[in-house]
């Protein structure tokens, strides 16, 4: 769920929900999966045998947890934490709606309201510098992480499950609180306001226009992103080398930059270098491509890995020409992955807010900008249909992924 949708949910049903701590709460609920998912994966991959060995060497349950288990998941937790730092640093929607002066909000205010380009530039540069420091720390932690790979071969036994006993109720309550904060509150706000919002006169036409704009510019952005991602992803998958590695790193660097900074730099690029593009959807599509290229490159590289060269060689040795091999082996194996990547980029473009705000042609409203505009003037009923649509869009890829993961016998 985008942070500005969550912020809308909280601010629209809790009076006076502004300032530092409310923003911290919303951003925590939005970004805890960045720590939760890697930590859970790391916990699953901890070999239970190492815990058993620790206990057999005389360490109790608590000392085993702190000395063995926690040590093994520490890199995952630290890397996740740094990722959250990056995410919060680059967040614009929540901090702007909840009126906390962070770098991103200050940059936007200087530029959009004060037309203070130099001030915006200085603040954005400082933001990039802080981002790069965190990014460097995150890379260092991740490189460190490889040291904890399982030593030795052999299949692991699944971990054993402990009974919580009297702790069961408090544990469940804690988890329920997380679920309530991250999902139930915004959902309640949506249900509360949407009926009212849709019944306003003329609102349906407005929503349809915004949805159409969103889809159009997102489709353009997704197409441009995939076009750029295909050669890079194929290079990374088929001919790994220094060039592919540099390209790959570069795409991640721009991905880590705040959307607001990328949007701002493209505004300057449009005004000073490519004026014909300024105030067109093309510049916005370029911003989307800059921001979301790693998603697409990852999808293309994963799809290419579905069809390793040995398959194509086997097909050629059976007397099939290059085009037939492409049609009967390579494409059937890679297209689903590339299509899923394109859909993911498309949906991510739909939810993007700061670059869209800066780069949209004057008069063009999208779902994200409409939600932002209405919420910032406290027109919660008018904002809610856009929030509902954006939540549905955010949920779609999760549902598809979950269904694919749960289908028995499906190809990994």
């Amino acid at each position: 769920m985008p942070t500005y949708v969550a912020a809308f949910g909280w601010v629209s049903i809790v009076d006076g929900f502004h300032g530092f701590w409310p923003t911290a709460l919303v951003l925590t609920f939005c970004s805890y999966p960045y720590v939760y998912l890697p930590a859970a994966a790391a916990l699953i991959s901890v070999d239970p045998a190492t815990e058993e060995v620790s206990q057999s060497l005389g360490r109790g349950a608590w000392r085993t947890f702190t000395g063995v288990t926690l040590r093994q998941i520490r890199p995952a937790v630290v890397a996740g934490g740094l990722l959250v730092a990056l995410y919060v640093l680059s967040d614009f929607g929540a901090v702007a709606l909840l009126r906390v002066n962070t770098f991103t909000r200050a940059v936007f205010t200087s530029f959009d309201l004060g037309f203070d380009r130099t001030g915006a530039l200085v603040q954005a540069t400082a933001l990039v510098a802080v981002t790069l420091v965190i990014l460097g720390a995150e890379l260092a932690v991740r490189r460190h992480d490889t040291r904890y790979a399982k030593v030795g071969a052999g299949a692991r036994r699944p971990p054993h499950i402990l009974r919580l006993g009297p702790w069961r109720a408090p544990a469940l309550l804690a988890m329920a609180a997380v679920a309530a904060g991250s999902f139930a509150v915004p959902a309640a706000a949506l249900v509360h306001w949407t009926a009212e919002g849709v019944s306003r006169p003329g609102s349906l036409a407005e929503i349809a226009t915004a949805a159409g704009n969103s889809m159009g510019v997102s489709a353009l952005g997704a197409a441009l992103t995939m076009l750029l991602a295909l050669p890079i992803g194929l290079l990374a998958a088929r001919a790994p080398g220094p060039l592919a590695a540099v390209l790959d790193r570069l795409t991640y660097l721009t991905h880590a930059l705040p959307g607001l900074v990328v949007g701002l730099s493209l505004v300057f690029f449009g005004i000073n270098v490519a004026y014909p593009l300024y105030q067109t959807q093309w510049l916005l599509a370029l911003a989307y491509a800059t921001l979301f290229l790693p998603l697409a490159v990852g999808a293309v590289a994963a799809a290419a890995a579905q069809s390793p060269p040995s398959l194509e060689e086997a097909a050629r040795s059976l007397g099939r020409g290059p085009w037939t091999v492409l049609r009967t082996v390579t494409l059937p194996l890679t297209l689903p992955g590339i299509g899923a990547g394109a859909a993911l980029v498309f949906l991510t473009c739909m939810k993007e807010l700061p670059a869209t705000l800066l780069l949209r042609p004057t008069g063009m409203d999208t779902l994200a900008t409409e939600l932002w505009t209405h919420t910032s003037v406290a027109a919660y009923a008018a904002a809610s249909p856009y929030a509902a649509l954006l939540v549905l869009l955010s949920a779609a890829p999760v549902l598809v992924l979950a269904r694919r993961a749960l289908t028995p016998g499906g190809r990994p």
Partner: protein
Amino acid sequence: MNALVVRAAHKAFGQVKALDGADLAVPGGTLTAVLGPSGCGKTTLLRCVAGFERLDAGEIALGDRPVSGPRAHVPAHRRGVAVVPQDGALFPHLDVAGNVGYGLDAAARRAGRIDEVLELVGLAGYGSRLPHQLSGGQQQRVAVARALAPRPRLVLLDEPFSALDAGLRAEVRADVRAALHADGATAVLVTHDQGEALSMADQVVVMHRGRVRQQGTPLQVYRTPADPWVAAFVGDAVLLTATADGGGARTPLGALDLHQPCTGTTTVLVRPEQIRVLPPGDAAAAVPATVRRHLFHGHDAVLDLTLDDGTPVTARLLDDPREFSPGTRVALTVSGPAHALPAGAE
């Protein structure tokens, strides 16, 4: 008639010479094993024959048709050379019948060729399974069936059994060999496993550092290797310095007959199973030795020994209930002739 002839093949990757003047000939209808340690160029040779790599120099001909040479490079799909890669490389989106029928035209499919080759590899009735529903051994059988289906001039097998566990490997090997013979296919098997090459192949080609060191029947390669390196690579070897005088040689293990006559100072090969271990002083011709180590393997046992002049010797004992502790004195004799190796090689 040779189905495949490779002449003076050269192929380098940067500074690394993968093929450095390799020559070999594969008679039609036979299974030839290309045997060598990893990095000897055997997989490169196979990829050049398949047409996936271009030769830097030299020639490859299939039957009387040149396919790789100074002027010509026939692309892989026009060669009629089917490969069975190490991991099988089955098409994951096609079922077994779709995989096996991939290289067939519609007429051959209707004529029942798919069922025929599946029957050959012992997988009749598996046509509608998907690759991920098969075990590793079954996947390799399907890969072999897929390669056999279009009746290629040549089937290339690239270490196809190395990913299987030991018990399964012997069974799949035997079945694949039978399927290849039953179909009359000409096949080249690349392997680093001496046992696999010696037991499966009609002909063994031993490669080392991009060159063919020896080509011959499994018996020839084992009994009369071309040089000390081949002798040590295709099995355990006892190498002895000897003075030859025609049909015989004087060695630290006594006077031995030679397979091929030879004169002068030379190195002779005796295989560990040729050495008999007797109690000390048991026979007049026996050479005294001291046991260093006794390794019991179940089906046989290996004795590491030292002769009184310091020469190390290995003996293999079959069906021998005796136990030898280190330091035990014994006497050795050799049964059968030794093989004189050409001097000067490594």
